[in-house]
Protein backbone atom coordinates (compact mmCIF):
# COMPACT_ATOMS: atom_id res chain seq x y z
CA UNK A 1 0.00 0.00 0.00
CA UNK A 2 1.42 3.38 -0.99
CA UNK A 3 1.78 6.34 1.31
CA UNK A 4 -1.05 8.07 -0.53
CA UNK A 5 -3.43 5.14 -0.13
CA UNK A 6 -2.67 5.01 3.57
CA UNK A 7 -3.94 8.55 3.89
CA UNK A 8 -7.32 7.74 2.33
CA UNK A 9 -10.33 7.62 4.63
CA UNK A 10 -11.18 4.11 5.91
CA UNK A 11 -14.34 2.45 4.61
CA UNK A 12 -15.99 2.65 8.03
CA UNK A 13 -15.63 6.42 7.99
CA UNK A 14 -17.08 6.66 4.48
CA UNK A 15 -20.06 4.50 5.51
CA UNK A 16 -20.62 6.68 8.55
CA UNK A 17 -20.74 9.79 6.37
CA UNK A 18 -23.12 8.12 3.93
CA UNK A 19 -25.47 7.29 6.79
CA UNK A 20 -26.14 10.98 7.36
CA UNK A 21 -29.48 12.16 5.97
CA UNK A 22 -29.41 13.99 2.64
CA UNK A 23 -30.73 17.52 2.97
CA UNK A 24 -32.13 18.56 -0.40
CA UNK A 25 -33.91 21.65 0.97
CA UNK A 26 -31.83 24.69 -0.07
CA UNK A 27 -33.17 26.61 2.91
CA UNK A 28 -31.60 24.16 5.34
CA UNK A 29 -28.54 23.23 3.33
CA UNK A 30 -25.22 24.35 4.80
CA UNK A 31 -23.91 27.64 3.46
CA UNK A 32 -20.15 27.86 3.46
CA UNK A 33 -19.01 30.97 5.26
CA UNK A 34 -15.28 31.34 5.69
CA UNK A 35 -15.85 34.41 7.85
CA UNK A 36 -16.85 32.19 10.77
CA UNK A 37 -13.39 30.59 10.70
CA UNK A 38 -11.79 34.02 10.33
CA UNK A 39 -13.61 35.30 13.40
CA UNK A 40 -12.50 32.22 15.35
CA UNK A 41 -8.88 32.89 14.41
CA UNK A 42 -9.35 36.50 15.43
CA UNK A 43 -10.78 35.43 18.80
CA UNK A 44 -7.65 33.30 19.31
CA UNK A 45 -5.49 36.37 18.60
CA UNK A 46 -4.06 34.94 15.39
CA UNK A 47 -5.14 37.74 13.07
CA UNK A 48 -7.26 40.87 12.74
CA UNK A 49 -10.46 40.86 10.69
CA UNK A 50 -11.08 44.24 9.11
CA UNK A 51 -14.83 44.86 9.31
CA UNK A 52 -16.83 46.16 6.36
CA UNK A 53 -17.49 49.83 7.14
CA UNK A 54 -20.94 51.36 7.03
CA UNK A 55 -22.74 52.14 4.86
CA UNK A 56 -22.86 48.82 3.05
CA UNK A 57 -25.37 46.98 0.87
CA UNK A 58 -26.27 43.35 1.48
CA UNK A 59 -26.35 41.04 -1.55
CA UNK A 60 -26.75 37.29 -1.98
CA UNK A 61 -23.97 35.02 -3.20
CA UNK A 62 -24.09 31.76 -5.14
CA UNK A 63 -25.13 29.54 -2.23
CA UNK A 64 -27.32 32.11 -0.53
CA UNK A 65 -24.88 33.65 1.92
CA UNK A 66 -25.48 37.34 2.51
CA UNK A 67 -22.45 39.43 1.58
CA UNK A 68 -21.79 43.02 2.64
CA UNK A 69 -20.57 45.31 -0.12
CA UNK A 70 -19.19 48.60 1.23
CA UNK A 71 -20.32 51.78 -0.47
CA UNK A 72 -17.89 54.28 1.06
CA UNK A 73 -14.40 54.62 2.60
CA UNK A 74 -12.71 52.61 -0.13
CA UNK A 75 -9.02 51.73 -0.58
CA UNK A 76 -8.57 51.20 -4.28
CA UNK A 77 -6.52 48.07 -4.86
CA UNK A 78 -5.62 48.88 -8.44
CA UNK A 79 -4.99 46.42 -11.28
CA UNK A 80 -1.64 46.46 -13.08
CA UNK A 81 -3.19 45.38 -16.37
CA UNK A 82 -5.88 48.04 -16.17
CA UNK A 83 -3.59 50.88 -15.08
CA UNK A 84 -0.80 49.84 -17.45
CA UNK A 85 -2.70 49.09 -20.64
CA UNK A 86 -6.35 50.18 -20.33
CA UNK A 87 -6.23 53.14 -17.92
CA UNK A 88 -9.74 54.31 -18.77
CA UNK A 89 -10.94 51.28 -16.82
CA UNK A 90 -9.44 52.58 -13.55
CA UNK A 91 -10.20 56.22 -14.33
CA UNK A 92 -13.87 55.35 -14.80
CA UNK A 93 -14.05 53.56 -11.43
CA UNK A 94 -12.54 56.56 -9.64
CA UNK A 95 -14.64 59.01 -11.68
CA UNK A 96 -17.79 57.19 -10.51
CA UNK A 97 -16.53 57.37 -6.90
CA UNK A 98 -16.04 61.10 -7.25
CA UNK A 99 -19.45 61.65 -8.87
CA UNK A 100 -21.11 60.05 -5.84
CA UNK A 101 -18.93 61.91 -3.34
CA UNK A 102 -17.33 58.70 -2.07
CA UNK A 103 -14.50 59.08 0.46
CA UNK A 104 -11.70 57.02 -1.08
CA UNK A 105 -7.97 56.45 -0.94
CA UNK A 106 -5.87 55.78 -4.06
CA UNK A 107 -2.71 54.29 -2.54
CA UNK A 108 0.92 54.37 -3.60
CA UNK A 109 1.56 51.82 -0.83
CA UNK A 110 0.24 49.01 -3.03
CA UNK A 111 1.71 46.35 -5.27
CA UNK A 112 -0.28 44.21 -7.66
CA UNK A 113 -1.32 40.80 -6.35
CA UNK A 114 1.36 39.29 -8.66
CA UNK A 115 -1.21 36.59 -9.49
CA UNK A 116 -0.97 37.13 -13.24
CA UNK A 117 2.68 36.14 -13.04
CA UNK A 118 1.91 33.17 -10.81
CA UNK A 119 -0.75 31.81 -13.18
CA UNK A 120 1.53 32.47 -16.15
CA UNK A 121 4.85 31.15 -14.95
CA UNK A 122 4.53 29.54 -11.48
CA UNK A 123 7.73 31.38 -10.53
CA UNK A 124 6.48 31.88 -6.99
CA UNK A 125 5.00 29.85 -4.15
CA UNK A 126 2.03 29.85 -1.80
CA UNK A 127 3.77 31.67 1.06
CA UNK A 128 5.03 34.49 -1.18
CA UNK A 129 1.63 34.93 -2.78
CA UNK A 130 -0.18 35.06 0.58
CA UNK A 131 2.38 37.55 1.88
CA UNK A 132 1.92 39.88 -1.08
CA UNK A 133 -1.81 39.80 -0.37
CA UNK A 134 -1.42 40.33 3.37
CA UNK A 135 1.07 43.17 2.89
CA UNK A 136 -1.51 44.98 0.76
CA UNK A 137 -4.31 44.24 3.23
CA UNK A 138 -2.17 45.56 6.10
CA UNK A 139 -1.42 48.71 4.09
CA UNK A 140 -5.15 49.26 3.60
CA UNK A 141 -5.90 48.61 7.28
CA UNK A 142 -3.28 51.16 8.34
CA UNK A 143 -5.13 53.88 6.40
CA UNK A 144 -8.53 52.99 7.85
CA UNK A 145 -10.00 52.50 4.37
CA UNK A 146 -11.51 49.24 3.11
CA UNK A 147 -9.93 47.39 0.15
CA UNK A 148 -11.88 47.35 -3.11
CA UNK A 149 -10.19 44.96 -5.52
CA UNK A 150 -10.16 46.20 -9.13
CA UNK A 151 -8.80 43.08 -10.84
CA UNK A 152 -10.82 39.89 -11.24
CA UNK A 153 -7.69 37.78 -10.96
CA UNK A 154 -6.61 39.57 -7.76
CA UNK A 155 -10.12 39.03 -6.40
CA UNK A 156 -10.20 35.30 -7.21
CA UNK A 157 -6.57 34.78 -6.24
CA UNK A 158 -7.06 36.51 -2.89
CA UNK A 159 -10.15 34.43 -2.15
CA UNK A 160 -8.17 31.25 -2.76
CA UNK A 161 -5.15 32.47 -0.79
CA UNK A 162 -7.45 33.47 2.08
CA UNK A 163 -8.76 29.89 2.21
CA UNK A 164 -5.20 28.55 2.26
CA UNK A 165 -4.26 30.98 5.02
CA UNK A 166 -7.25 29.95 7.13
CA UNK A 167 -6.82 26.21 6.61
CA UNK A 168 -3.03 25.83 6.93
CA UNK A 169 -1.58 26.82 10.30
CA UNK A 170 2.00 26.35 9.10
CA UNK A 171 1.46 28.85 6.28
CA UNK A 172 -0.03 31.29 8.80
CA UNK A 173 3.05 30.95 11.01
CA UNK A 174 5.37 31.57 8.07
CA UNK A 175 3.34 34.57 6.92
CA UNK A 176 3.22 36.04 10.43
CA UNK A 177 7.00 35.74 10.84
CA UNK A 178 7.67 37.73 7.65
CA UNK A 179 4.97 40.31 8.43
CA UNK A 180 6.61 40.81 11.85
CA UNK A 181 9.84 41.64 10.04
CA UNK A 182 7.96 44.20 7.98
CA UNK A 183 6.31 45.59 11.12
CA UNK A 184 2.87 44.82 9.78
CA UNK A 185 -0.14 43.10 11.37
CA UNK A 186 -1.80 40.04 9.84
CA UNK A 187 -5.10 41.46 8.62
CA UNK A 188 -7.79 39.84 6.49
CA UNK A 189 -10.86 41.80 5.39
CA UNK A 190 -14.25 40.46 6.48
CA UNK A 191 -15.33 40.38 2.83
CA UNK A 192 -13.20 40.36 -0.30
CA UNK A 193 -14.97 42.79 -2.60
CA UNK A 194 -14.56 43.28 -6.33
CA UNK A 195 -15.11 46.74 -7.84
CA UNK A 196 -17.85 45.34 -10.12
CA UNK A 197 -19.77 44.45 -6.97
CA UNK A 198 -19.57 48.09 -5.92
CA UNK A 199 -20.80 49.10 -9.39
CA UNK A 200 -23.54 46.47 -9.03
CA UNK A 201 -24.89 47.86 -5.76
CA UNK A 202 -24.65 51.42 -7.13
CA UNK A 203 -26.43 50.60 -10.41
CA UNK A 204 -29.75 52.23 -9.55
CA UNK A 205 -27.98 55.40 -8.45
CA UNK A 206 -26.06 55.35 -11.73
CA UNK A 207 -29.34 54.93 -13.62
CA UNK A 208 -30.87 57.87 -11.72
CA UNK A 209 -28.12 60.09 -13.13
CA UNK A 210 -28.06 58.57 -16.61
CA UNK A 211 -27.86 61.18 -19.37
CA UNK A 212 -27.13 58.93 -22.35
CA UNK A 213 -30.06 56.88 -23.60
CA UNK A 214 -28.75 53.36 -24.19
CA UNK A 215 -32.04 51.63 -24.98
CA UNK A 216 -31.14 51.16 -28.66
CA UNK A 217 -27.98 49.25 -27.82
CA UNK A 218 -27.52 45.49 -27.61
CA UNK A 219 -24.69 44.11 -25.47
CA UNK A 220 -23.22 40.71 -24.74
CA UNK A 221 -21.79 40.05 -21.29
CA UNK A 222 -18.62 38.09 -20.70
CA UNK A 223 -18.53 37.06 -17.02
CA UNK A 224 -14.90 36.95 -15.90
CA UNK A 225 -13.65 33.45 -14.96
CA UNK A 226 -11.56 34.55 -12.00
CA UNK A 227 -14.51 36.50 -10.62
CA UNK A 228 -16.82 33.52 -10.21
CA UNK A 229 -14.91 30.29 -10.98
CA UNK A 230 -11.71 30.09 -8.91
CA UNK A 231 -13.72 30.28 -5.71
CA UNK A 232 -17.42 30.05 -6.53
CA UNK A 233 -18.53 31.44 -3.21
CA UNK A 234 -18.69 35.21 -2.73
CA UNK A 235 -19.70 36.13 -6.28
CA UNK A 236 -23.08 37.90 -6.48
CA UNK A 237 -26.07 35.89 -7.71
CA UNK A 238 -29.62 37.22 -7.92
CA UNK A 239 -32.77 35.18 -8.62
CA UNK A 240 -33.98 37.99 -10.90
CA UNK A 241 -30.90 37.73 -13.14
CA UNK A 242 -30.67 34.50 -15.19
CA UNK A 243 -32.82 32.84 -12.50
CA UNK A 244 -29.86 32.97 -10.15
CA UNK A 245 -27.98 30.48 -12.32
CA UNK A 246 -25.25 32.90 -13.44
CA UNK A 247 -23.55 35.75 -11.71
CA UNK A 248 -25.63 38.94 -11.69
CA UNK A 249 -22.80 41.47 -11.82
CA UNK A 250 -22.49 43.39 -15.09
CA UNK A 251 -25.80 42.09 -16.48
CA UNK A 252 -27.83 43.77 -13.72
CA UNK A 253 -26.04 47.08 -14.35
CA UNK A 254 -26.68 46.96 -18.11
CA UNK A 255 -30.34 46.13 -17.57
CA UNK A 256 -30.65 49.02 -15.09
CA UNK A 257 -29.30 51.31 -17.81
CA UNK A 258 -31.92 50.06 -20.28
CA UNK A 259 -29.44 48.15 -22.46
CA UNK A 260 -30.69 45.04 -24.24
CA UNK A 261 -28.53 42.19 -22.88
CA UNK A 262 -28.42 39.44 -25.49
CA UNK A 263 -27.48 35.88 -24.60
CA UNK A 264 -25.04 33.76 -26.59
CA UNK A 265 -24.18 30.11 -26.34
CA UNK A 266 -20.53 30.32 -25.25
CA UNK A 267 -21.09 32.65 -22.28
CA UNK A 268 -19.33 30.20 -19.91
CA UNK A 269 -16.16 30.00 -22.01
CA UNK A 270 -13.14 31.94 -20.88
CA UNK A 271 -11.85 34.77 -23.08
CA UNK A 272 -8.59 33.00 -24.01
CA UNK A 273 -6.30 35.24 -21.97
CA UNK A 274 -4.29 32.28 -20.65
CA UNK A 275 -1.94 34.50 -18.53
CA UNK A 276 1.19 33.11 -20.18
CA UNK A 277 -0.42 32.86 -23.60
CA UNK A 278 -1.44 36.52 -23.86
CA UNK A 279 2.19 37.52 -23.39
CA UNK A 280 4.24 34.90 -25.22
CA UNK A 281 1.86 32.55 -27.09
CA UNK A 282 -0.93 34.69 -28.46
CA UNK A 283 -1.88 32.36 -31.31
CA UNK A 284 -3.95 30.45 -28.76
CA UNK A 285 -5.38 33.62 -27.23
CA UNK A 286 -6.40 35.14 -30.56
CA UNK A 287 -7.93 31.90 -31.83
CA UNK A 288 -9.99 31.31 -28.73
CA UNK A 289 -11.12 34.92 -28.30
CA UNK A 290 -12.26 35.15 -31.91
CA UNK A 291 -13.59 31.67 -32.63
CA UNK A 292 -15.27 30.94 -29.30
CA UNK A 293 -16.35 34.41 -28.19
CA UNK A 294 -16.47 37.30 -30.68
CA UNK A 295 -17.62 35.34 -33.74
CA UNK A 296 -20.23 33.45 -31.72
CA UNK A 297 -21.60 36.74 -30.41
CA UNK A 298 -21.62 38.21 -33.91
CA UNK A 299 -23.31 35.19 -35.45
CA UNK A 300 -25.91 34.68 -32.75
CA UNK A 301 -26.91 38.22 -31.64
CA UNK A 302 -24.66 40.73 -33.44
CA UNK A 303 -24.15 43.01 -30.40
CA UNK A 304 -23.11 46.67 -30.46
CA UNK A 305 -20.61 45.96 -27.70
CA UNK A 306 -19.31 43.35 -25.30
CA UNK A 307 -19.11 44.27 -21.64
CA UNK A 308 -16.99 42.51 -19.06
CA UNK A 309 -15.47 43.16 -15.65
CA UNK A 310 -11.87 42.09 -15.61
CA UNK A 311 -8.50 43.23 -16.85
CA UNK A 312 -7.56 40.22 -18.93
CA UNK A 313 -10.97 39.88 -20.57
CA UNK A 314 -11.07 43.48 -21.83
CA UNK A 315 -7.49 43.18 -23.07
CA UNK A 316 -7.97 39.84 -24.80
CA UNK A 317 -11.35 40.44 -26.39
CA UNK A 318 -10.41 43.93 -27.55
CA UNK A 319 -6.84 43.38 -28.77
CA UNK A 320 -7.41 39.99 -30.43
CA UNK A 321 -9.73 41.36 -33.10
CA UNK A 322 -7.22 43.24 -35.27
CA UNK A 323 -5.32 40.22 -36.60
CA UNK A 324 -8.56 38.30 -37.07
CA UNK A 325 -9.94 41.12 -39.18
CA UNK A 326 -6.98 40.73 -41.52
CA UNK A 327 -8.08 37.11 -41.95
CA UNK A 328 -11.61 38.30 -42.75
CA UNK A 329 -13.05 36.78 -39.59
CA UNK A 330 -16.38 38.13 -38.36
CA UNK A 331 -15.11 40.56 -35.73
CA UNK A 332 -15.57 44.26 -34.94
CA UNK A 333 -17.32 44.24 -31.56
CA UNK A 334 -16.08 47.03 -29.25
CA UNK A 335 -15.18 45.85 -25.76
CA UNK A 336 -15.76 47.94 -22.64
CA UNK A 337 -15.59 47.41 -18.90
CA UNK A 338 -18.78 47.87 -16.87
CA UNK A 339 -17.22 50.86 -15.12
CA UNK A 340 -16.70 52.55 -18.50
CA UNK A 341 -20.30 51.87 -19.55
CA UNK A 342 -21.61 53.27 -16.23
CA UNK A 343 -19.42 56.37 -16.54
CA UNK A 344 -20.44 56.90 -20.17
CA UNK A 345 -24.11 56.59 -19.20
CA UNK A 346 -23.55 59.40 -16.68
CA UNK A 347 -21.93 61.60 -19.29
CA UNK A 348 -18.21 61.01 -18.73
CA UNK A 349 -15.84 62.27 -21.40
CA UNK A 350 -15.01 59.40 -23.79
CA UNK A 351 -11.29 60.26 -23.83
CA UNK A 352 -10.49 62.22 -20.66
CA UNK A 353 -12.29 59.59 -18.54
CA UNK A 354 -12.98 56.44 -20.59
CA UNK A 355 -9.64 56.85 -22.40
CA UNK A 356 -11.08 54.99 -25.40
CA UNK A 357 -8.00 55.82 -27.48
CA UNK A 358 -6.25 52.99 -25.58
CA UNK A 359 -8.75 50.48 -27.07
CA UNK A 360 -7.94 48.72 -30.32
CA UNK A 361 -11.30 47.60 -31.73
CA UNK A 362 -13.27 50.42 -33.33
CA UNK A 363 -15.58 52.04 -30.75
CA UNK A 364 -16.76 54.84 -33.07
CA UNK A 365 -19.89 53.03 -34.38
CA UNK A 366 -21.00 52.41 -30.80
CA UNK A 367 -20.63 56.07 -29.80
CA UNK A 368 -22.41 57.15 -32.96
CA UNK A 369 -25.31 54.81 -32.22
CA UNK A 370 -25.50 56.34 -28.75
CA UNK A 371 -25.72 59.78 -30.34
CA UNK A 372 -22.35 60.88 -28.92
CA UNK A 373 -20.36 63.29 -31.06
CA UNK A 374 -17.01 61.56 -30.59
CA UNK A 375 -15.25 63.78 -33.12
CA UNK A 376 -15.98 66.88 -31.04
CA UNK A 377 -14.78 65.14 -27.86
CA UNK A 378 -11.65 63.88 -29.63
CA UNK A 379 -10.92 67.43 -30.78
CA UNK A 380 -11.20 68.61 -27.15
CA UNK A 381 -8.85 65.87 -26.06
CA UNK A 382 -6.39 66.66 -28.83
CA UNK A 383 -6.31 70.23 -27.55
CA UNK A 384 -5.47 68.84 -24.10
CA UNK A 385 -2.64 66.80 -25.64
CA UNK A 386 -1.34 69.79 -27.56
CA UNK A 387 -1.34 71.92 -24.40
CA UNK A 388 0.61 69.20 -22.60
CA UNK A 389 3.11 68.92 -25.45
CA UNK A 390 3.58 72.70 -25.52
CA UNK A 391 4.31 72.54 -21.79
CA UNK A 392 1.32 74.72 -20.94
CA UNK A 393 0.01 72.14 -18.49
CA UNK A 394 1.80 69.19 -16.85
CA UNK A 395 -1.12 66.85 -17.50
CA UNK A 396 -4.84 66.34 -17.07
CA UNK A 397 -6.31 66.60 -13.59
CA UNK A 398 -9.67 65.78 -12.12
CA UNK A 399 -10.52 69.42 -12.56
CA UNK A 400 -10.32 68.84 -16.32
CA UNK A 401 -12.19 65.54 -16.30
CA UNK A 402 -14.63 65.69 -13.41
CA UNK A 403 -17.54 67.50 -15.00
CA UNK A 404 -19.80 65.32 -17.17
CA UNK A 405 -19.05 66.16 -20.80
CA UNK A 406 -22.28 64.83 -22.27
CA UNK A 407 -25.64 66.38 -21.49
CA UNK A 408 -29.00 64.67 -21.65
Amino acid sequence: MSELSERLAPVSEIREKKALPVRPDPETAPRPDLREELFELEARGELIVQRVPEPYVEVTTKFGRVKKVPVDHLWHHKSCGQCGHIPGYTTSILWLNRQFGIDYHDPTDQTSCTGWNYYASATSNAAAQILVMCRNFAAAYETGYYPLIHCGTSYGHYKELREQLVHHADLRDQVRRVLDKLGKPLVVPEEIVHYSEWVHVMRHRVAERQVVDMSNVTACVHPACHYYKIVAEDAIYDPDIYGGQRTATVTALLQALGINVADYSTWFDCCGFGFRHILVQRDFTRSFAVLRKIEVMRDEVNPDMTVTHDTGCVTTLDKSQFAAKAHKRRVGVPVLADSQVAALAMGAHPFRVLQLHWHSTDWRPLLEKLGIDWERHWQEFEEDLAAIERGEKPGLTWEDAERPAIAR
Partner: protein
Amino acid sequence: MSATWSPAKAGRTYAEVPEEEKRRLFEEVVADPRYEDFLYGCYECGICVSVCPSARFYDFSPRVIAQALSREDVDRFYEILMEDIWNCAQCFSCVRCPRGNNPGGLVTLIREVAVRHGLEQAQEALQGYSRVIYKIMLKGNQVSPDMLQPDFFPDWGPWVREFSQHMHTWRKAIPVDTLRSVTDAAWRTDDRTLRELYTIWFETGNMEIIREVDEGLYELLVEIMEEELEARA
Protein backbone atom coordinates in the same frame (compact mmCIF):
# COMPACT_ATOMS: atom_id res chain seq x y z
CA MET B 1 2.13 22.47 -28.85
CA SER B 2 2.35 19.23 -26.92
CA ALA B 3 2.93 15.91 -28.60
CA THR B 4 -0.24 14.03 -29.44
CA TRP B 5 -1.33 11.89 -26.56
CA SER B 6 -3.21 8.67 -26.81
CA PRO B 7 -3.88 5.86 -24.35
CA ALA B 8 -1.49 3.68 -26.32
CA LYS B 9 1.29 6.18 -25.78
CA ALA B 10 0.83 6.55 -22.04
CA GLY B 11 3.93 5.74 -20.10
CA ARG B 12 6.09 4.92 -23.10
CA THR B 13 7.29 8.34 -24.11
CA TYR B 14 9.87 8.74 -21.39
CA ALA B 15 10.77 5.09 -20.85
CA GLU B 16 14.43 6.03 -20.48
CA VAL B 17 13.71 8.15 -17.38
CA PRO B 18 14.09 6.02 -14.24
CA GLU B 19 10.88 5.23 -12.40
CA GLU B 20 12.41 6.60 -9.17
CA GLU B 21 12.97 9.99 -10.77
CA LYS B 22 9.36 10.16 -11.96
CA ARG B 23 8.09 9.12 -8.54
CA ARG B 24 10.33 11.61 -6.75
CA LEU B 25 8.83 14.50 -8.74
CA PHE B 26 5.33 13.09 -8.33
CA GLU B 27 5.75 12.90 -4.55
CA GLU B 28 6.89 16.52 -4.55
CA VAL B 29 3.55 17.52 -6.03
CA VAL B 30 1.63 15.33 -3.58
CA ALA B 31 3.57 16.81 -0.65
CA ASP B 32 2.26 20.31 -1.37
CA PRO B 33 -0.19 21.21 1.42
CA ARG B 34 -2.72 22.38 -1.20
CA TYR B 35 -2.78 19.03 -2.99
CA GLU B 36 -5.45 17.53 -0.76
CA ASP B 37 -7.71 20.52 -1.43
CA PHE B 38 -7.33 20.14 -5.18
CA LEU B 39 -7.93 16.41 -5.78
CA TYR B 40 -10.71 14.18 -4.49
CA GLY B 41 -10.74 11.46 -7.15
CA CYS B 42 -12.39 11.48 -10.57
CA TYR B 43 -15.78 10.34 -11.94
CA GLU B 44 -14.44 10.49 -15.51
CA CYS B 45 -17.54 12.50 -16.42
CA GLY B 46 -15.55 14.86 -18.65
CA ILE B 47 -17.22 18.07 -17.49
CA CYS B 48 -13.79 19.64 -16.96
CA VAL B 49 -12.78 18.80 -20.53
CA SER B 50 -16.01 20.12 -22.01
CA VAL B 51 -15.41 23.58 -20.54
CA CYS B 52 -11.63 23.66 -20.95
CA PRO B 53 -10.38 26.22 -23.52
CA SER B 54 -7.02 24.50 -23.87
CA ALA B 55 -8.70 21.17 -24.65
CA ARG B 56 -10.15 22.81 -27.78
CA PHE B 57 -6.82 23.87 -29.23
CA TYR B 58 -4.24 21.54 -27.71
CA ASP B 59 -3.94 17.86 -26.93
CA PHE B 60 -4.73 18.68 -23.35
CA SER B 61 -7.14 17.15 -20.87
CA PRO B 62 -7.77 18.22 -17.28
CA ARG B 63 -9.53 14.87 -16.79
CA VAL B 64 -6.38 12.94 -17.70
CA ILE B 65 -4.45 15.03 -15.16
CA ALA B 66 -6.93 14.26 -12.37
CA GLN B 67 -6.97 10.60 -13.41
CA ALA B 68 -3.22 10.19 -13.58
CA LEU B 69 -2.69 11.76 -10.19
CA SER B 70 -5.55 9.81 -8.58
CA ARG B 71 -4.11 6.54 -9.87
CA GLU B 72 -0.57 7.53 -8.94
CA ASP B 73 0.35 6.80 -12.56
CA VAL B 74 3.83 8.28 -12.41
CA ASP B 75 4.57 7.52 -16.07
CA ARG B 76 1.58 9.51 -17.25
CA PHE B 77 2.34 12.15 -14.60
CA TYR B 78 5.79 12.58 -16.10
CA GLU B 79 4.33 13.09 -19.58
CA ILE B 80 1.99 15.72 -18.18
CA LEU B 81 4.90 17.44 -16.46
CA MET B 82 6.99 17.49 -19.62
CA GLU B 83 4.34 18.14 -22.29
CA ASP B 84 0.99 19.36 -21.02
CA ILE B 85 1.11 21.78 -18.13
CA TRP B 86 2.11 24.91 -20.04
CA ASN B 87 -0.94 24.60 -22.29
CA CYS B 88 -3.36 25.22 -19.41
CA ALA B 89 -5.00 28.68 -19.61
CA GLN B 90 -5.46 28.86 -15.80
CA CYS B 91 -9.04 30.09 -16.21
CA PHE B 92 -10.31 27.52 -13.69
CA SER B 93 -13.40 26.67 -15.71
CA CYS B 94 -12.54 23.08 -14.76
CA VAL B 95 -13.47 23.64 -11.10
CA ARG B 96 -17.02 22.98 -12.27
CA CYS B 97 -16.02 19.40 -11.42
CA PRO B 98 -18.84 17.61 -9.54
CA ARG B 99 -16.23 15.86 -7.43
CA GLY B 100 -14.77 19.19 -6.27
CA ASN B 101 -11.45 18.75 -8.04
CA ASN B 102 -9.34 21.69 -9.11
CA PRO B 103 -7.38 20.46 -12.16
CA GLY B 104 -6.14 24.00 -12.87
CA GLY B 105 -4.77 24.12 -9.32
CA LEU B 106 -3.06 20.75 -9.85
CA VAL B 107 -1.44 22.16 -12.99
CA THR B 108 -0.14 25.08 -10.90
CA LEU B 109 1.43 22.69 -8.40
CA ILE B 110 3.06 20.64 -11.18
CA ARG B 111 4.32 23.82 -12.84
CA GLU B 112 5.90 24.88 -9.55
CA VAL B 113 7.81 21.60 -9.46
CA ALA B 114 8.87 22.04 -13.10
CA VAL B 115 10.16 25.54 -12.37
CA ARG B 116 11.86 24.60 -9.07
CA HIS B 117 13.83 21.95 -10.91
CA GLY B 118 14.64 24.26 -13.81
CA LEU B 119 13.28 21.74 -16.32
CA GLU B 120 14.13 22.54 -19.92
CA GLN B 121 10.45 22.46 -20.86
CA ALA B 122 9.68 25.14 -18.27
CA GLN B 123 12.46 27.33 -19.58
CA GLU B 124 11.21 26.81 -23.11
CA ALA B 125 7.64 27.70 -22.16
CA LEU B 126 8.87 30.88 -20.49
CA GLN B 127 11.06 32.02 -23.37
CA GLY B 128 10.52 35.70 -23.98
CA TYR B 129 8.93 36.00 -20.57
CA SER B 130 12.00 37.21 -18.64
CA ARG B 131 11.21 40.89 -19.08
CA VAL B 132 7.86 40.26 -17.39
CA ILE B 133 9.57 38.54 -14.45
CA TYR B 134 11.97 41.49 -14.23
CA LYS B 135 9.02 43.89 -14.04
CA ILE B 136 6.95 41.94 -11.54
CA MET B 137 9.83 41.28 -9.15
CA LEU B 138 11.17 44.84 -9.21
CA LYS B 139 8.06 46.97 -9.69
CA GLY B 140 5.34 44.72 -8.30
CA ASN B 141 3.43 45.12 -11.57
CA GLN B 142 3.04 42.55 -14.32
CA VAL B 143 2.85 45.07 -17.14
CA SER B 144 3.57 48.74 -17.75
CA PRO B 145 2.97 51.17 -20.62
CA ASP B 146 6.59 51.01 -21.81
CA MET B 147 6.14 47.29 -22.52
CA LEU B 148 3.61 48.10 -25.25
CA GLN B 149 6.07 48.04 -28.14
CA PRO B 150 5.14 47.40 -31.79
CA ASP B 151 7.75 44.66 -32.15
CA PHE B 152 6.30 42.76 -29.22
CA PHE B 153 2.61 43.25 -30.05
CA PRO B 154 2.45 43.45 -33.86
CA ASP B 155 -0.85 41.56 -33.88
CA TRP B 156 -2.54 44.29 -31.83
CA GLY B 157 -2.53 46.50 -34.89
CA PRO B 158 -1.36 50.00 -35.77
CA TRP B 159 -2.78 51.16 -32.44
CA VAL B 160 0.40 49.97 -30.68
CA ARG B 161 2.66 52.01 -32.97
CA GLU B 162 0.50 55.08 -32.50
CA PHE B 163 0.53 54.56 -28.75
CA SER B 164 4.30 54.11 -28.55
CA GLN B 165 4.78 57.39 -30.42
CA HIS B 166 2.56 59.27 -27.97
CA MET B 167 3.12 57.26 -24.77
CA HIS B 168 4.46 60.07 -22.61
CA THR B 169 1.77 62.55 -23.61
CA TRP B 170 -1.02 60.02 -23.33
CA ARG B 171 0.13 59.03 -19.84
CA LYS B 172 0.13 62.67 -18.80
CA ALA B 173 -3.44 62.93 -20.06
CA ILE B 174 -4.79 60.59 -17.37
CA PRO B 175 -6.46 62.47 -14.50
CA VAL B 176 -5.66 59.82 -11.84
CA ASP B 177 -2.79 61.11 -9.68
CA THR B 178 -1.12 57.73 -9.17
CA LEU B 179 -1.12 56.94 -12.91
CA ARG B 180 -0.34 60.30 -14.47
CA SER B 181 3.04 60.40 -16.25
CA VAL B 182 4.04 56.91 -15.03
CA THR B 183 5.38 54.81 -17.92
CA ASP B 184 7.74 52.22 -16.38
CA ALA B 185 5.11 50.80 -14.01
CA ALA B 186 1.34 50.61 -13.90
CA TRP B 187 1.17 53.21 -11.10
CA ARG B 188 3.42 55.17 -8.78
CA THR B 189 4.59 52.97 -5.90
CA ASP B 190 6.40 54.02 -2.73
CA ASP B 191 10.05 52.94 -2.42
CA ARG B 192 9.28 51.53 1.03
CA THR B 193 6.50 49.38 -0.47
CA LEU B 194 8.91 47.93 -3.02
CA ARG B 195 11.50 47.21 -0.34
CA GLU B 196 8.83 45.30 1.58
CA LEU B 197 8.07 43.37 -1.58
CA TYR B 198 11.77 42.48 -2.03
CA THR B 199 11.88 41.27 1.57
CA ILE B 200 8.95 38.97 0.83
CA TRP B 201 10.72 37.56 -2.24
CA PHE B 202 13.89 36.82 -0.25
CA GLU B 203 12.18 35.47 2.88
CA THR B 204 9.96 33.00 1.00
CA GLY B 205 12.63 31.56 -1.25
CA ASN B 206 11.06 33.16 -4.31
CA MET B 207 14.42 34.44 -5.58
CA GLU B 208 15.78 30.89 -5.66
CA ILE B 209 12.90 29.93 -7.92
CA ILE B 210 13.86 32.73 -10.33
CA ARG B 211 17.43 31.43 -10.35
CA GLU B 212 16.22 28.08 -11.70
CA VAL B 213 14.47 29.79 -14.62
CA ASP B 214 17.07 32.41 -15.54
CA GLU B 215 20.34 32.67 -13.63
CA GLY B 216 21.43 35.91 -15.32
CA LEU B 217 18.15 37.59 -14.49
CA TYR B 218 18.39 36.31 -10.92
CA GLU B 219 21.82 37.91 -10.44
CA LEU B 220 20.66 41.20 -11.88
CA LEU B 221 17.55 41.28 -9.68
CA VAL B 222 19.43 40.34 -6.51
CA GLU B 223 21.99 43.07 -7.12
CA ILE B 224 19.33 45.76 -7.54
CA MET B 225 17.20 44.54 -4.62
CA GLU B 226 20.10 44.15 -2.20
CA GLU B 227 21.31 47.63 -3.06
CA GLU B 228 17.86 49.03 -2.26
CA LEU B 229 17.55 47.08 0.98
CA GLU B 230 21.06 48.06 2.10
CA ALA B 231 20.35 51.73 1.34
CA ARG B 232 17.43 51.54 3.77
CA ALA B 233 19.50 49.79 6.41
